[in-house]
């Protein structure tokens, strides 16, 4: 492992000499556009394609590309949210899948669809990729739906819901002295205060911490349940430069998984996140922005530790969008973290950012991407 600073700190002045970007992949690939829906508790009046299509149009409009000009399309979603098999095929209508396009789908958060698209571009088979993700949680009870992703022999028959499993992790953190209920409440409050500047967020401003849902987690420690979609466009090298004034170069990306059995894991840590971050080169230099997919306040504590982000006041903007505590459209929230980090680079608010996505109970699977903008 390379020597690393104990705590990443943003360069003191904008005139500090830029660190050369480390070239670790065959091709330069950047996020060149990002769009997302307004995330809402329900979207009864919209089918999935009707919800996704405006977001696709927005992200393509940012680049001037048309659907037929995209080299590869990849999406992330889950049939279990809608309760209908192969529901993702319906949204293909929104990308103009005829004449035939090169397309793929992951039954995962769209961050993993982005990873697949990134690999596709690395192989040289495409120069551009459209990645989108969506989730309508409103038709069912997402707490119960998510139990179906658990070990079917020993765990799923007990129907432990997503909040219950996160609460077990939160208790383990409190017992370990890593946090307390007050600190957790502060994470929720900060997230929703920051989300006031995010027009797409579902839950913003001052939100009561509320009663225990599954103690020690209170309502304010849990993400809102809602419907939403997001999309990004990836492009390689000079194509990226032609489509975007300041591309958000993906200088590192990696994803790792941990054992399925919750009782086999140390819930107070996220070694998979740490390993992914090391392989993505996160610790090679400081970051100024961190978009973390932490649906529960307690999970931000775990991720800060794994990513060595330290605490408030260290100069790193953590979830300036409000994060998943302000809007957590299932299967899109991780892709949104990459999109939000990239958008900050696009508009010059960030030079080097880390984006994280998670999937599965208690941060079982984690993806880390490092994004960088060209320095003037």
């Amino acid at each position, binding site marked *: 492992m390379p020597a690393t600073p104990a705590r990443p700190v943003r360069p003191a002045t904008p005139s500090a000499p830029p660190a050369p970007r480390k070239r670790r992949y065959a091709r330069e690939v950047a996020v060149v556009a990002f769009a997302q829906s307004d995330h809402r508790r329900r979207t009864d009046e919209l089918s999935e394609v009707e919800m996704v299509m405006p977001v696709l149009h927005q992200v393509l409009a940012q680049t001037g590309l048309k659907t037929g000009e995209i080299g590869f399309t990849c999406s992330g979603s889950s049939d279990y949210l809608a309760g209908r098999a192969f529901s993702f095929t319906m949204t293909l209508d929104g990308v103009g899948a005829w004449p035939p396009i090169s397309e793929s789908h992951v039954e995962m958060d769209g961050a993993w669809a982005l990873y697949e698209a990134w690999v596709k571009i690395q192989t040289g088979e495409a120069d551009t990729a459209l990645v989108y993700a969506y989730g309508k949680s409103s038709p069912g009870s997402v707490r119960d739906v998510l139990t179906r992703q658990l070990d079917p022999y020993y765990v799923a028959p007990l129907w432990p819901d997503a909040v219950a499993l996160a609460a077990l992790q939160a*208790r383990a953190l409190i017992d370990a002295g890593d946090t307390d209920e007050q600190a957790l409440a502060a994470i929720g409050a900060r997230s929703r205060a920051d989300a006031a500047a995010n027009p797409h967020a579902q839950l913003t401003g001052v939100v009561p911490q509320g009663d225990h849902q599954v103690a020690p987690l209170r309502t304010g420690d849990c993400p809102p349940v809602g419907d939403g979609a997001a999309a990004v466009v990836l492009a390689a090298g000079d194509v990226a430069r032609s489509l975007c004034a300041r591309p958000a170069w993906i200088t590192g990306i990696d994803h790792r998984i941990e054992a399925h059995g919750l009782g*086999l894991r140390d819930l107070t840590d996220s070694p998979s996140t740490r390993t992914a971050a090391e392989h993505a080169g996160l610790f090679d230099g400081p970051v100024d922005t961190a978009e973390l997919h932490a649906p529960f306040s307690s999970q931000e504590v775990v991720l800060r530790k794994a990513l060595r982000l330290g605490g408030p006041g260290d100069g790193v903007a953590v979830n300036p969008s409000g994060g998943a505590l302000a809007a957590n459209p299932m299967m899109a929230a991780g892709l949104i973290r990459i999109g939000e980090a990239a958008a900050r680079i696009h508009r010059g608010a960030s030079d080097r950012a880390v984006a994280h996505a998670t999937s599965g109970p208690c941060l079982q699977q984690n993806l880390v991407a490092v994004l960088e903008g060209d320095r003037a």
Partner: protein
Amino acid sequence: MTAAPPPETLRAPLVVEFPFTRSLGPVQSAFLTGLREGVVLGVKTSGGKVMVPPVEYDPVTAEEIRELVEVAPTGTVTTWAWNASPRPNQPLATPFAWVLVTLDGAGTGLLHALDAPGPDAVRTGMRVRVRWAAERSGAITDIACFEPCDAGPDDGGPDSCDGAPARPHDGAFADPVTGIVAAARLDYTYTPGRAQTAYINGLAERKTVGERCPSCHKVYVPPRGACPTCGVATTDRVEVGPAGTVTTYCIVNIKARGLDIDVPYVYAHIALDGAGLALHGRIGGIPYDQVRMGLRVEPVWTEGGRHPDHYRPTGEPDADYDAYKELI
């Protein structure tokens, strides 16, 4: 052609239910059979760690592990969460704690429920024991829940909370459990969205309403709200049919369970007049072996039906192949 007004949102219950039938490997079979017999088994890795519940492959080395051991039905809570409002299907209907319990002799945690009077009665490190279900079948729910050790006698008798080291077990039981049936039911409320709502509402008035792509002008029926060629919303409504042309068909010879239609019958693609693609439906009112490509048909509605029951010949001459070949 009219621009679509805002739809009334249709909604209907949607139940997804399936009895997942799963086979068990040797380790899972021994564990679940053991639960039926009131014995908790773990599996020992080559490193000496005992895993409860057992896995078949070492999560660190990926080595196949088969060495079964019996652990105590008592253990220690390593983390917990108080569930004041139990949800359907969860182990207890009254408020309880979710717990990870490391059983005595084990080195990993088992997830289950703890029956305790309230959150003040639960803490990390507390001693608990298994409460067995009255009727056991070889499933994780054979453990009804855990209960605090101080809730009963701790006199060294059968209910003692004294721990015991893991001891070897051959995993052999009479009539082993080789599979589980895990029923899963999820309840949804389906809402079809703008385009399909308009289509379904139209059918209720015995009209078939498609939507035209503003870009390529093709009329989709049933409409899904988007043109898959152009990737844009289809917002202009167009009434099509009622008559149409059979573009292709097949003869169904196997009766589906619960289907009240005699076989053989014909299932066809039908291009309604004015539509840009064919929809599918059953052909009736004509012997199955006389259905042909180009046959002109019209919908037949049953009393109170919300969609056509089937299509029957109109009696018109067959359509020219050239008239529908693009729609096959």
